[in-house]
């Protein structure tokens, strides 16, 4: 048993590469649980960050600083009455959240959290992600249609139109990145791991490649991905001030929570695409500029350090809690949570663990940045109207994307073109 574990760990490849069914299953489980936990954390963070942007405090009662709020909510959703509208198409109504959640989670099969931290390294990885994530719209349409109600119907129709039109711009931006992978090796790759490796070989993140082309492509993707996940300012399918809750108006309880889960999982998925394609995936910042064993060592301490800082914040928070009997449990809870984080941080200091989690850490940090952007947008921007959304998609992003694609191709071919011209010239 131990042998099997070490044998796999020594291969330094994904379970898919190692051909290990057992490890693939374990990875899938870890990813599923991890994503669910991330969604829960995201839920809390979104509330807190949004609240602070809106000069509120956010949840403060359930657990210290509302840390247990997402769990309380999850519990509430699970024990809530499961309502299916009388005239709903029961089968479709039932399957819609399943479809949405399944697709959102399936995309994570190919997301490389590290060189060896992916379920498998598919050679069409990015295509697979796009394909699966666009299946999610099917679930949304199913939800909207089967609810047999006007608001969900309109929400789902908006959603489908929006997703289809923004996928075009998104695809163009992705093609730019894929083009960039082919520049030095001559053959491009659609593999997610391959794309990151290409960035490692080219000693740059693609966002800085061919400045400003890489950045433009990234910007197009960054806008399209917000629209793709139905988040503010493109949250028309669930625009609560217009359509009450859009496609999931009629859903409640557990089914609704599946939509919620899927929405956040989709956000994580598209963010991980963005991270992989433009922000160097699991690579730490400046791997070539700040290289050498000392820098490696310094950077490898960062994950542990982050956790220790969080631990310290928790302990300080616990110390600053109001000293009254009612807050006693909360204070103790926060202190224990801090200690838990501190323990985890200490574990991460172990050399073997340290090396293995580093890539996951950087990947997570980069995704967290996108998550923050999502929340930030939501806290700041008004919502587009439907026709304006379409206008932005088709009239701004699509032409820009095409232009960037062509420009990237030309720029990439410049050496060949110039040498060809030089060769023709006498």
């Amino acid at each position: 048993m131990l042998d099997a574990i070490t044998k796999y760990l020594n291969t330094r490849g994904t379970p898919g590469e190692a051909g290990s069914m057992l490890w693939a299953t374990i990875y899938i489980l870890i990813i599923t649980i991890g994503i669910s936990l991330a969604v829960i954390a995201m839920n809390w963070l979104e509330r807190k960050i949004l609240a602070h942007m809106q000069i509120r405090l956010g949840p403060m009662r359930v657990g210290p600083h509302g840390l247990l709020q997402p769990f309380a909510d999850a519990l509430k959703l699970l024990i809530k009455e499961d309502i299916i509208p009388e005239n709903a198409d029961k089968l479709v109504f039932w399957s819609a959240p399943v479809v949405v959640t399944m697709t959102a989670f399936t995309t994570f099969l190919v997301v490389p959290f590290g060189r060896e931290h992916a379920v498998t390294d598919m050679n069409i990885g990015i295509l697979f992600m796009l394909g699966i994530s666009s299946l999610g719209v099917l679930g949304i349409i199913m939800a909207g249609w089967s609810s047999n109600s006007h608001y969900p119907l309109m929400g789902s129709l908006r959603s489908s139109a929006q997703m289809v039109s923004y996928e075009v711009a998104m695809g163009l931006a992705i093609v730019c990145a894929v083009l960039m992978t082919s520049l030095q090796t001559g053959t491009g790759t659609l593999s997610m791991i391959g794309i990151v490796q290409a960035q490692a070989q080219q000693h740059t993140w693609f966002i800085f490649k061919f400045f400003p082309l890489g950045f433009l492509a990234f910007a197009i993707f960054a806008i399209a991905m917000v629209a793709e996940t139905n988040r503010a300012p493109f949250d028309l399918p669930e625009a609560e001030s217009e359509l009450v809750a859009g496609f999931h108006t009629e859903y409640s309880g557990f089914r609704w929570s599946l939509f919620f889960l899927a929405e956040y999982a989709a956000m994580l998925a598209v963010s991980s695409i963005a991270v992989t394609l433009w922000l160097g995936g699991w690579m730490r910042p400046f791997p070539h500029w700040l290289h050498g064993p000392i820098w490696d060592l310094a950077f490898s301490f960062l994950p542990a350090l982050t956790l220790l800082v969080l631990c310290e914040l928790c302990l300080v928070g616990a110390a600053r809690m109001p000293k009254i009997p009612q807050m006693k449990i909360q204070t103790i809870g926060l202190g224990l949570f801090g200690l838990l984080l501190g323990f985890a941080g200490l574990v991460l200091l172990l050399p073997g663990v340290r090396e293995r989690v580093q890539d996951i850490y950087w990947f997570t940090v980069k995704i967290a940045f996108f998550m923050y952007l999502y929340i930030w947008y939501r806290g700041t921007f008004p919502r587009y109207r439907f026709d304006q959304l379409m206008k932005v998609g088709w009239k701004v992003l699509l032409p820009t994307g095409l232009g960037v694609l062509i420009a990237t191709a030309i720029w990439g071919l410049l050496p060949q073109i110039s040498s060809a011209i030089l060769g023709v010239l006498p």
Partner: protein
Amino acid sequence: MSLSPLIRKILLVDLIKGLKVTFDYQKPSEAITEQYPLERPVVYERYRGLPRLKVDPEKGNSMCIVCNLCALACPEQLIVVKGERNPVTKRKEPVSWSYDLSRCMFCGLCAEACSTDALELTQDFEIAFYTREGMVLDQAALETGHEPKRYEK
């Protein structure tokens, strides 16, 4: 000059300005949330809250002289006072008081009408009751003031 708006538009200046505002407000010190049971709101002097019937601090009898002005001034007619003349002191004393708080809109007209300043609206704002009947205050409840329920946890 005409170029500048275009550049601003391309550089998303308008959006970034908005983002900056929300970003700056994230400081916890900016939060205005009041953690109610822990932090008590400031209630100002003139606040019109729970009504109270004053008792003469020296003599210990009610300051109400049953002039009925409050009952007449009340738009909702929710005050009912009955009194009779005390043969000893020759002044009218309330026999029964009823103040239906469930219909009160705290306009303060009764306190303004009171000729002896016996009735006043206090700063007590925590006036939740478990029953509708409980909201009809009698003289004792009005005089002692309703035991302020401190909502804690």
